[in-house]
């Protein structure tokens, strides 16, 4: 029975990892930019949600659309105003340094505004365990998994079925060809960064109800996103979902079978193996970031 519990816990945790990584994956896949401020954007999402819950009593799950809208706008503006300039005037490496700087600035701004103290979002339904036979589940984590699946499904739909999604994918595959077909690549990059920031914000909202957080946690979520993307493949929600679920299962499985101090070691061992054996990830594609 402990095995079933472990698998259930792993899937729930994996859903969180997947959602937190999909924005990172999209930017990496479409623009080839390693966004080192990804975790910081996740934290902004967590703090915005905390603020809405704490000051206005807004349920954290209901706050997600608002948080996504705010971060979409901020992400679009940051890409068009900063990152695009760095990429055009210098190199992709410059964009990496720029996003690293952005991460430091966001982290310290959050410390100034919200203090370095721990914050946590605890809605009323947090205290009622979900009992399915012998398996006991944390209702917050189950809600988080459900929200992650819905949002990832929505993103997959947008990318696969809408004109905007097709434009993003076309630009990711062949920027020059897309430009020749009349696509405004700069606008597409802005949209991509905006969508990625919105999903990072949504994952922050969900992480906020599951984990206590403080500004320095941003580096953890950038690192986790990197591992998930390497595992699952770059640029697609399905890759992020697969990578996230695998990481969740590896984490809880290792914790149960080998010991709770080993999930990180196992995670990085698998990261190294993936980079050696299949660098494009399990569901790798032809996007620029995969090549």
């Amino acid at each position, binding site marked *: 029975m402990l095995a079933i519990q472990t698998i259930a816990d792993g899937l729930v945790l994996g859903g969180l990892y997947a959602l937190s990584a999909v924005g990172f994956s999209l930017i990496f896949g479409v623009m080839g930019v390693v966004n080192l401020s990804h975790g910081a954007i996740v934290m902004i999402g967590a703090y915005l949600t905390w603020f809405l819950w704490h000051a206005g009593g807004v349920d954290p799950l209901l706050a997600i659309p608002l948080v996504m809208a705010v971060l979409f706008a901020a992400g679009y503006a940051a890409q068009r105003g900063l990152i695009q300039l760095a990429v055009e005037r210098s190199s992709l490496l410059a964009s990496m340094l720029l996003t690293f700087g952005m991460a430091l600035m966001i982290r310290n701004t959050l410390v100034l505004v919200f203090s370095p103290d721990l*914050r946590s979002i605890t809605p009323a339904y947090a205290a009622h365990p979900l009992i399915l036979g012998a398996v006991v*589940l944390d209702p917050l984590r189950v809600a988080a998994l459900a929200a992650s699946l819905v949002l990832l499904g929505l993103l997959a739909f947008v990318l696969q079925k809408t004109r905007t999604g097709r434009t993003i994918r076309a630009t990711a595959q062949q920027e020059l060809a897309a430009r020749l077909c009349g696509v405004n690549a700069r606008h597409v990059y802005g949209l991509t960064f905006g969508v990625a920031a919105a999903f990072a914000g949504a994952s922050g909202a969900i992480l906020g109800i599951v984990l206590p957080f403080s500004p320095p946690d941003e580096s953890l979520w950038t690192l986790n996103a990197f591992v998930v993307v390497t595992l699952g493949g770059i640029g697609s929600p399905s890759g992020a979902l697969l990578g996230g679920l695998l990481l969740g299962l590896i984490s809880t499985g290792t914790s*149960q079978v080998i010991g709770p101090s080993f999930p990180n070691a196992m995670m990085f061992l698998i990261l190294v193996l993936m980079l050696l054996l299949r660098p494009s990830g399990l569901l790798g594609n032809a996007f620029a970031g995969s090549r």
Partner: protein
Amino acid sequence: MRMSRRSLVTMAGGTILAAPALRRAAAQAKTITFGGSVPLSGGAAETGLNVNNGYATAVKFINETFGGVEVAGAKYRLELKLFDDASDPSRAVTLIQRQLDEGVDFFLGSFGSPIVLPTAAITERAEKPMVQAGGGSDQIFTQGFKYVFGFFPRATRQFISTADFMHSLKPALSNYSLIFTNDAFSKTAAQGVINSMKEQGIPLLESYTFPETITDASSVLASIRAKTPDALVCMTHDQDNLLLAKQMIATGTNVNYLFQGLGPQLGSFRETLGAKANGIFFQTYWDERAPLQDKFFGTPARFAAYYKANYTRPIAYHVSAGAACIVTYIEAMQKAGSLDPVKVRDALAGIDISTQYSRIKFTEQGDGDPVIMGPWIGQVVKGQAEVVAPAAAKTAEYTYPTPAWDKRV
């Protein structure tokens, strides 16, 4: 107003001529400078800010109220020269080395054993004292350092009073499980739990080691639900303990006695858990209602009142400990009758004074005496952090066995 070239030259010349006199005036205002680093940002900042505020409160109060301190017949104002180490040991080491190069003689500690340990090694080599209320790892006190003095007993000795209390509970605890993280403080503190509980004859059912930061404890909690220990002892940090408590509540993982070393003392922790925090046991080193006397502040209550009048940040025991570090230094300087770092170090080694934090007496290795400076037993009662043992400091009665999570409303 326009200034002519002539008047500008006259003013500049006057300033240059007056400079030696200004320097002399500055030299007459004698100061005692305390150097060091504190984590004002990064992972340790929450408690780092408390320690920093403690240092700052004492210096401000003593300068404002007494105009400074008198050492060997001369009056000195106190000055702090603290920098943000961003919770980064390597950054802290660089900052401390720079201060040593600049001639700072007396150091205050950062927060967290991973930072205190390497910085203490540098001040030790330079033969400059460090008084700190932020590092309890055994490694700080078992390497033969002579110049480092810590307010907390070393980690392996911090659980003695709690184990004794747990042994006294009725109905008796039949066993316990232990959770700790893989870092310098938590590992040694966990060893202290094992040693102390063994002495009290309470058997260990299972121990679980997590990495330095916990992001998920579901599999461990599943194991705890399956094995049902009487008590669960969490020798983990604030953030980890909050996560553990939240996951225990959400999965209905109940034990008769839940101990969390760090976290329940903080208002933010109790506010997050609400009524569910009631019943969680912890250790505390200070309470503003304690019957103690301090040469400068008078009582803990007066210290707390002064702090609250000057800071909006809630008071915590690390604030009190930080302030007591300054008081301890001053008393040692006055006892030594000198500001020579070696003489002050010798005075610190033999000090035995009462402060608003606690009676201060160090062991030969420099950590807090485990009996005199050991922790009290606390429990969250009606949302407040109360002292439930020993009897002399008790502020509330304890509840044991604690009710199941769903009964705490």
